[in-house]
């Protein structure tokens, strides 16, 4: 509907498509891991839209890092719990 700019989802799909040659040349396992990264960036599309950054890919990369960091935190906590239960 009369859009001047692509929506954030469109921008995201364009950015992802721009890496299709890169993805194609990866091994199957790496391709799946890359897909996970992009899927994690998608969790924050609304925040990326609100940020209205001139280079949206930077926001997407940061979103991937954010999800990675959350995962690390979660694993770290689980690890601490496991060690705790072993000590007990």
């Amino acid at each position, binding site marked *: *509907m009369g859009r001047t700019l692509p929506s954030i989802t469109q921008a995201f799909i364009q950015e992802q498509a721009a890496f299709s040659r890169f993805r194609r040349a990866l091994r199957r396992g790496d391709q799946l891991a890359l897909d*996970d990264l992009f899927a994690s960036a998608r969790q924050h*599309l609304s925040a990326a*839209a*609100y940020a*209205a950054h*001139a280079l949206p890919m930077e926001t997407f990369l940061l979103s991937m890092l954010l999800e990675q960091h959350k995962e690390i935190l*979660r694993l770290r906590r689980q690890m601490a719990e496991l060690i705790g239960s072993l000590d007990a």
Partner: protein
Amino acid sequence: MPDRVGWLLDLYEDTREGVVLWLIGDDGERWRLRQNFPVTFYAAGDLEQLRGLQRYLRTRPEKLRLYRTQRRDLFHDKPLTLLAIEMGAPIRQPRLFQQIADQFPDLDYYDADLNITLRHAARWGTFPLARCSVSVDDKGIVRELRVLDSPWDLDPFDVPLRVLSLKPDCDPAHAQPSVLIACHDGHEYRLSFQLERPLLINLRALLRRIDPDLLLTVNGDTWLLPLLLSLAKRHNLPLPFNRELGRGVLHKKEGTYFSYGQIIYRGQQILLYGRCHIDCRNAMMWQSYDLEGALESARITALPIQTAARVSPGTGISSMQITTALRSNILVPWRKQQIERPKTALDLIRFDQGGLVYQPIVGLHFDVGMIDFISMYPSIMVHSNISPETPFPDRLGSSDYPPGLIPLTLKPLLEKRIALKQRALSLPSWDPRRRKDKARSLAHKWLLVTCFGYLGYKNARFGRIEAHEAVTTWGREALLRAKEAAEEMGFRVLHMYVDGLWVQKDGCREPRDFQPLLEEVAVRTSLPISLDGVYRWVAFLHSRVDDRLPVPNSYFGVFQDGSVKARGIDLRRRDAAPFVADTQREMLHCLARAQNPADLQQQVPEAVDILRRRLAALNAGRVPLENLLVGKKLSKQLAGYRVLSPGARAVMQLQAAGKPVRPGQRVRLIFTRGGDGVHAWDLPYPPDLASVDVEHYQKLLLRAAANLLQPFGLNEDVLLVQVRADLGRQLELPLRAWRRRRPPMVFEFDPALYPAPYHQ
């Protein structure tokens, strides 16, 4: 000079001078009154050209009054100098204006193409079904007119309308109707189409005897009235559809247009003089708000009842803006000349955005509060005074400037909507006002929703893209402030969608637990906000294609009172077959019976059982064909399709049978095996029962069920395995045996299948 009190039914241009008013008198009579009502329109521009126009107008045969005047254009700082053209016969104004515009295309025109009822509303405060007191002289000419009520009254008078409804005994697009069914006041009359003369004579007698104010028809615009009129002509037995004698009915051509990302088709229209004709099939949103809503939108937009029932809410809201402008002596431009001011790329990136739509936390959640801003965008326009002519607000809340045109138009509407909403909370469930309030509230809702769109619409007379952007900017700000408030108060924000938030907090179960949050948000945003309800449980769905991706507008849940709310799943989709939608609805209501998380697990096998029964019915051919109908909309001309969709193939079948379909029209079809893969329902011959593509419907049904059971860890494949094994056995048994021997509940709910939310 007799005084008459009654309700204004219809108003239109007289064939000579002034206007005709039809009044439903308190005495039960229908009065035809005339009123002098000169109309004025304006031309502005190059002085030399204006002089030329003046010379030209002096040569015209119409009686005109020409004078110079000054008035305000919303988009100019200084008042404009204009040539005013006043004429006593409004009926001749459109033609005169057209000729002037052709001869002097470089001039700007104002107030030139306005509906007569809007002009009358601005001058006299009238609106359809307004209670009026009029003084009339001996010739039936109105000398004085007073309006005794207001469209903003919460309870309008119950106008004693005489209604005659006419409908054919079946859908004429599907088969040839044989009987015309006429209903009035609980009596039903059946007239055969085969006996043409008796049909016409009886119908004429009915129209004369009942003398209806409102003619409610099914397919009246597109089929029934054109047919009856042509029969009447052939047999030389004129039908008194009009109350006004000596005038033909008004035909308006069909059309297709593009709106809100959809192709919409409007059939031809037949409008009457002195009576109102509403075709339920051609009325906008009849399904959602029926006659009460149509009358309400006529009252508040001041458009004639017949028009208001047929036009989009967009036309309704611009009519309200035009009336406000006329009352405030602001010129209504004929064509908008406003263009967007240049912006930097960064500004564009910042402002060219819509509302905030979040990705929900996928899965099942218990005790969730849903809060939403009441009519968020209109509230922002009114509270922050956003209008094309007012400066861009720098904060949410009150403005230092006098209210602009848009806030002036919206304020009473918004206040009425909020008042009705508040009343809805206090009315007991048996109160008859509830249904009426709901229909009227829906009419308001659509007007308010489109008002925002019209701020940014390039052809809107009072639109300005920057005002449109300001509304979304402050909308995003309000939603984020609400999120911040919720998080600071310890709530978990599960989802946000433009003007609503789903929040959850341990120990918050009752509406009063959310009250402090509501108050805090109201303080921070200065916008009205309310609790939509507390969900016992709600499930946000992930994408069918990729289960890592949440979908913003796909969810379902159950409120504490047991009512169900669902969005984005088959039972809400207009193209879902009733059989599929009903099954999904039945399954959802089965799940909704659960009072707590433990119960919910119990209900899942029962829901799977419903699916199993429905699948068996499908396989045994026990589903009526009507329930398998799928409605598809034709979005473009057939030639535009590269790959023919099922809908397009059905359209081809219809065209081959001589029934053309226009873009925006819906075709109903059944999926069949072999050939085109579809059978258009409106073909003259019925589909072969054996050819129904049962497998395809199985697939659709499984997909719908899987959508619903997704939060419980079941997908299409698992479901298929679950139901197929015993389906095979059941089908070999006779029907009765299967009924007696209910299938065992092989399915157990496994909490381990419950998907972990993506991020914790």
